[in-house]
């Protein structure tokens, strides 16, 4: 018998603290597999966010540093400029990237920093107890919008990927999800491209991953997969939002 799928070398054996059915574990694995496949484990530096993934440095078997809430793109900018031969990526949630760190994210993209950002969007602040995030859907119930998000007082779900796509500095932006094996394999392909872009010095790449948060959504892990399909994807459509490679060829 031959082992064909097992824990990648870039993941430690530590049991993660995520809730049952959380999408973070899948995204961690995809990143670890991509790093193994590209053979860059010894020269990769990750920047962990504040949020549920705050302990990501315990799960990845390569160098990972921690940044203040929302500031991973700024920290990654510093690391990449001092050590340009390393592969530097940030791993951020929607509270971290689209709320507290909006300024850092927008300006890192606008400067066209040669870094990779993996943006995990689950539409809530998970770690603090399921409060409303800027990405929360209209009418979605959270602990701070118990009657559902009302756009009159709380605005609309922010499509940060589309917004960053408008900036001249960004090179590659794609939105994917991990709610089925097929979508998970597609997500891995996007993450791999985002890392390859950095290795080829192309510039700022961001992959937004729509991810499950069954606890904060008040559903079970299996229903959470359908929740993404039925509620999140209509608001946050999947696909390539910007790819300068394709634009150059006239395909996008």
């Amino acid at each position: 018998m031959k082992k064909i799928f097992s824990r990648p070398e870039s993941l430690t054996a530590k049991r993660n603290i995520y809730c049952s059915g959380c999408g973070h574990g899948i995204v961690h694995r995809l990143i670890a597999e991509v790093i193994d496949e590209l053979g860059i484990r010894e020269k990769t530096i990750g920047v962990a966010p504040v949020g549920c993934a705050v302990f990501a440095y315990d799960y990845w078997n390569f160098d990972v540093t921690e940044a203040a809430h929302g500031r991973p793109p700024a920290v990654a900018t510093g690391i990449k400029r001092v050590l340009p031969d390393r592969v530097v990526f940030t791993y951020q949630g929607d509270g971290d990237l689209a709320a507290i760190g909006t300024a850092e994210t927008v300006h890192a993209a606008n400067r066209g920093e040669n870094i990779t950002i993996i943006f995990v969007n689950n539409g809530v602040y998970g770690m603090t107890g399921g409060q409303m995030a800027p990405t929360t859907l209209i009418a979605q119930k959270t602990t701070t919008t118990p009657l559902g998000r009302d756009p009159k007082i709380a605005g609309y779900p922010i499509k940060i990927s589309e917004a960053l796509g408008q900036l001249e500095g960004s090179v590659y932006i794609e939105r994917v999800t991990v709610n089925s094996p097929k979508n998970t394999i597609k997500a891995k392909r996007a993450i791999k491209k985002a890392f390859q872009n950095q290795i080829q010095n192309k510039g700022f790449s961001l992959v937004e991953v729509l991810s499950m948060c069954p606890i904060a959504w008040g559903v079970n892990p299996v229903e959470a997969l359908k929740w993404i399909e039925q509620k999140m994807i209509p608001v946050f459509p999947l696909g390539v939002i910007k790819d300068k490679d394709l634009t150059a060829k006239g395909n996008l």
Partner: protein
Amino acid sequence: MGKIIINIEQCKGCKLCVIFCPKQLIKLSEKLNPAGYHPAEFIDNGQCNSCGLCYQMCPDVAIEVWKGEKR
């Protein structure tokens, strides 16, 4: 013919592997693991074809997939 090995200490019983197994070879155990979840259990009846869909969806990377040699 293949098989999977489930790390029952890491499994959190989310059932994502159960619903995606095309041959329904995974169920939740009656027993509890140290963290208090009913972990997934493999039904080894020789039908597993090592497709790896369970591995793709496991948020805890608790599944190892093995493939048998061709006869």
